[in-house]
């Protein structure tokens, strides 16, 4: 007692790993219910068409088929459309234009993969075979898959509610001030860049197992979700499945999300509806090709940006114009991603007095686009860091020096685009990163490469992001349909072991370990005596799930505050047990003590007494030891860092090899460095994937050309180097633990670092992502 080493801040091994790596995880597809039936979706092979006759007769006759349900039947069900949870207003004050979005289409399909019917059968095989027998007449319409083409006056219109395919024309910042600064600038750098569309590719595909218990009039939905309570709220209040207490959502083990499992998808709705109608539990697990076609994609921006500088190379203004592709429908957070988590980060790490951004979003005949790791912030970081790099080169200044000259140096710092950075030290991570990569030795390495016929380049990416979404009242003002606090419940058992119920959700984030580390330290108990429970709306009080790097700063802060309440109550009980005044009791390293006595009590002793309730007046102190907290952060927190990439390009083939990669991040206080380093590694691989390899490509007919791993290039271990990861620390002031979110940083800082390095190697101004070998070869050839 009292001698346990501190766990928080240490690289404690992941408690969840033995289960997950021995195949003992329980994923949605592992759930096998009595009378289980399987669903197969009939999906449109056409990107844009009016739906004619749907003939289900042959499918209904297929052996094993339980039922075939069509879009027309869904339309008659009384259930509502899938909805977007964030209202954005255009700059003229109009609300965003929302197209209809039924879970099963009955009138019109707008992208390849959109579901039009579902077949439910006794086996997966029978469902799939019968789905091929559903005959749908499609009356084809013209197709538009590109966001700029969607703006053309003669472009086909996807939704009657959205003329010109425009969802909104939004702005932030002061346009007149920016125009003036641009006019008065000593130098203006302009760039046009594409932020390539990505497919999320979680290892576990999306999965649903829905059942309906008629005797209790209650649904149970197993679903691979990042946000079970949020989904339940949506299914109840938006879709119309009845009150929340009649729906239980369970997301036990989930194999990766990256944002793509934070949304409400058609399949959940259809499987619940079918389960009640057909009286059988209905399971569906996406095949990988379905994941490519229907998991919400990420990014897909086209941006023109101008940076104004004065004669002293100080940035005076930034003007940004972005066209964002929303896909065929507004996904759950589709409207938010290109606005309040994008343009509000356009100040980067720089003191820019004037910023203006205009974002126009349009519908196209493509898979809906929504949040994908970083969600808006990688797009913003890419604009800023490319622009700053090009500007430095145009001015003939060292890009690191140019950044230094324009860094924000005092905190808090209010940018012209909504955000107030509470803390940071940008110079510290830039210096450390350049030191770690041995920037001083770069020129010698460049010469050595040149001697071998290779081109070497060094590129910097200084990112900042708003993590830990978020301050509820402010987000409500900006259009959020929900509050984004987090809850925690701590149940101390009579034997002194602890259950922690969190509304955050772990799908790779190691909550079972990191959360337990903090609680173990707070109570002076072992990490093994703490169980983290999440992902079941019948178990956990409430919560908003995990995305936006919120589990540490928001979720763990709620737990920390619940620990405070537990300690406060336990101290009162301890005072009675020790027969000392309550205000003399202290609790440290698992021991209750008082200056009034030499006697000490352990945490477990007090816990037991809290439940026996023999030694304190229960009229004053309730028995038991269980507390709940809801923590609403007063603001975002602002992780920032410097990523430095060194590439070596083979000019003959255009192949880019990443020779060195250093990431130095300021995540404030870190709970488990090994886990955080893992988060950084994963993010870096995704960011490097975006920069070099990944791209969702559509043809003119709206067919996804990169719809499998034969053509969509996921990064593999041999595509990336050993990463050199370091940390600096400034505490966040917006949560009690001083933490800053670490989940998305890797994917934000790395793309500009890679592209800046390639441009440096080739001596070119710009190359669009992904910098594939052919693109690089062409750049080399035309630069020569």
């Amino acid at each position: 007692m009292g001698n346990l080493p501190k766990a928080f801040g240490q690289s404690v091994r992941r408690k969840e790993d033995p289960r997950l790596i021995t195949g003992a995880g329980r994923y949605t597809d592992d759930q096998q219910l009595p009378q289980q039936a399987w669903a197969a979706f009939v999906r449109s092979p056409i990107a844009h068409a009016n739906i004619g006759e749907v003939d289900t007769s042959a499918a209904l006759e297929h052996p094993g088929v339980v039922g075939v349900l069509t879009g027309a039947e869904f339309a008659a069900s009384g259930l509502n459309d899938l909805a977007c949870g964030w209202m954005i207003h255009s700059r003229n004050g109009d609300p965003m234009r929302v197209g209809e979005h039924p879970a099963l289409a009955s009138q019109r399909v707008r992208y390849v993969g959109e579901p039009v019917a579902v077949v439910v059968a006794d086996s997966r095989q029978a469902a799939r075979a019968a789905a091929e027998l559903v005959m749908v007449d499609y009356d084809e319409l013209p197709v538009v898959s590109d966001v700029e083409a969607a703006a053309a006056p003669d472009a086909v219109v996807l939704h009657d509610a959205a003329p010109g395919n425009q969802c909104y024309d939004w702005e932030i910042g002061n346009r007149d001030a920016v125009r003036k600064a641009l006019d008065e600038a000593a130098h203006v750098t302009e760039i046009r860049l594409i932020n390539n569309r990505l497919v999320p590719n979680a290892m576990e595909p999306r999965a649903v197992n829905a059942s309906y218990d008629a005797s209790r009039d209650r649904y149970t939905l197993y679903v691979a979700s990042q946000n079970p309570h949020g989904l339940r709220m949506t299914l109840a209040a938006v879709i119309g499945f009845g009150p929340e207490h009649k729906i239980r959502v369970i997301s036990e083990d989930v194999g990766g999300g990256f944002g793509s499992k934070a949304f409400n998808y058609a399949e959940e709705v259809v499987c619940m509806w079918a389960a009640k109608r057909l009286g059988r539990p209905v399971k569906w697990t996406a095949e990988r090709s379905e994941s490519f076609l229907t998991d919400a994609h990420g990014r897909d921006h086209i941006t023109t940006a101008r940076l104004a500088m004065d004669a002293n190379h100080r940035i005076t203004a930034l003007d940004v114009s972005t066209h964002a592709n929303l896909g065929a429908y507004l996904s759950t957070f589709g409207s938010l991603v290109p606005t309040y988590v994008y343009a509000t980060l356009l100040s980067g790490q720089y003191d820019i007095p004037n910023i203006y951004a205009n974002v126009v979003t349009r519908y196209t005949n493509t898979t809906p686009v929504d949040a994908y790791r970083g969600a808006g912030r990688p797009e913003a970081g890419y604009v800023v860091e490319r622009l700053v790099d090009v500007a430095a080169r145009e001015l003939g200044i060292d890009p690191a020096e140019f950044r230094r000259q324009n860094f924000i140096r005092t905190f808090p710092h209010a940018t012209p685009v909504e955000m107030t950075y509470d803390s940071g030290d940008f110079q510290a991570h830039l210096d450390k990163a350049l030191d770690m990569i041995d920037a001083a030795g770069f020129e010698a390495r460049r010469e050595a490469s040149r001697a071998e016929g290779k081109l070497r380049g060094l590129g910097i990416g200084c990112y900042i992001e708003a993590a830990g979404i978020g301050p509820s009242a402010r987000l409500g003002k900006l259009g959020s349909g929900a509050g984004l606090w987090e809850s925690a419940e701590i149940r101390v058992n009579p034997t002194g072991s602890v259950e922690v119920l969190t509304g955050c959700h772990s799908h790779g984030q190691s909550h079972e370990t990191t959360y337990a580390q903090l609680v173990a330290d707070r109570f002076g108990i072992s990490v093994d005596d703490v169980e983290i429970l999440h992902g079941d709306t019948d178990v956990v009080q409430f919560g908003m799930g995990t995305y936006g790097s919120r589990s540490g700063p928001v979720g763990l802060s709620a737990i920390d505050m619940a620990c405070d309440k537990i300690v406060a109550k336990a101290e009162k009980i301890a005072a009675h047990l020790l027969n000392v005044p309550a205000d003399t009791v202290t609790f440290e390293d698992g021991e209750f003590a008082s200056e009034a006595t030499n006697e000490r009590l352990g945490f477990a002793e007090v816990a037991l007494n809290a439940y026996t309730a023999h030694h304190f007046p229960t009229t004053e102190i309730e028995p038991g030891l269980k507390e709940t907290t809801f923590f609403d952060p007063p603001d975002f927190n602002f992780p920032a860092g410097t990523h430095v990439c060194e590439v070596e390009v083979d000019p003959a083939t255009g192949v880019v090899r990443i020779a060195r990669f250093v990431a130095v991040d300021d995540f404030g206080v870190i709970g488990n460095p090994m886990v955080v380093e893992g988060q950084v590694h994963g993010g870096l691989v995704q960011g490097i994937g975006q920069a070099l390899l990944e791209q969702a490509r559509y043809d003119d007919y709206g067919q996804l050309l990169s719809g499998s791993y034969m053509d969509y290039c996921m990064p593999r271990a041999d595509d990336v180097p050993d990463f050199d990861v370091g940390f600096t620390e400034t505490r966040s002031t917006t949560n009690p633990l001083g933490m800053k979110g670490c989940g998305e940083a890797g994917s934000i800082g790395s793309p500009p670092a890679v592209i800046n390095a390639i441009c440096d190697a080739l001596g070119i101004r710009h190359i669009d992502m992904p910098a594939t070998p052919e693109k690089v070869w062409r750049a080399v050839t035309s630069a020569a």
Partner: protein
Amino acid sequence: MYPFNYHKPSSVDEAVSLFLDAEDPAYLSGGMTLIPTMKQRLAMPTDLVDLSGVQAMRGIERQDQKLVLGAFTRHAEVARSEVVAQAIPALAHLAGLIGDNQVRYRGTIGGSVANSDPAADYPAAVVALGAEVVTNKRTISSADYFQDLFETALEPGEMIVRIELPIPRRAAYRKFPNPASRYAVVGVMVAQFDNGVQVGVTGAGPCAFRASTLEAALAADLRPEALAGVDIPDAGFNADLHASAEYRAHLVGVMARRAVADLLAS
């Protein structure tokens, strides 16, 4: 996958006769293309004739100036074979570049050559080495074997039994892999024989071919520099998301130069 009948013959004759008796059969060798295609329901054979039990299609043997590979020899067996390493090390190297470990432990040279995927590696070696494709009926010269995209001289039901590869003095293979699939965007084998230099190219065109302009240049001067000015027309070359025809033609030159350098260093 749709249901099908499964057969596992133990001889070539039995395999052929099972094939000819079936309604819409397919030979199953490593299955590295056929099985995924069946799983995607793009192929739906009524009968699969599994060749894994046919002993006559197995084995790696050196016969004088020829290397003889049974059609059912798996890529991993070629990659690690001492016999191959002694006779044609470039072939062992090529086999080790195919797919990934899982593919190399299932896929076979006969399956690869019979399928004639334009991006497969083995066809480059087959044409560069002037191999002979021995079937249950006849011997086909590599010059006549590859005909077009997924098209070979094989007749319906005809089955490759073994492949006989002349042993060059030296050879080298260079591959530019597709970053996603790791198939060859372009693969070039350069082989030096007593009577000349032969260059086989895969990935670039609809099927593997001999690059005669490169061969002529190397016949005069077997050095990478000899290829510097040689024109590689891209007419008829493949073009996809990953590489245009023009880029593929360029890569043929680069891979050929590098293969020659490797060959000279070997």
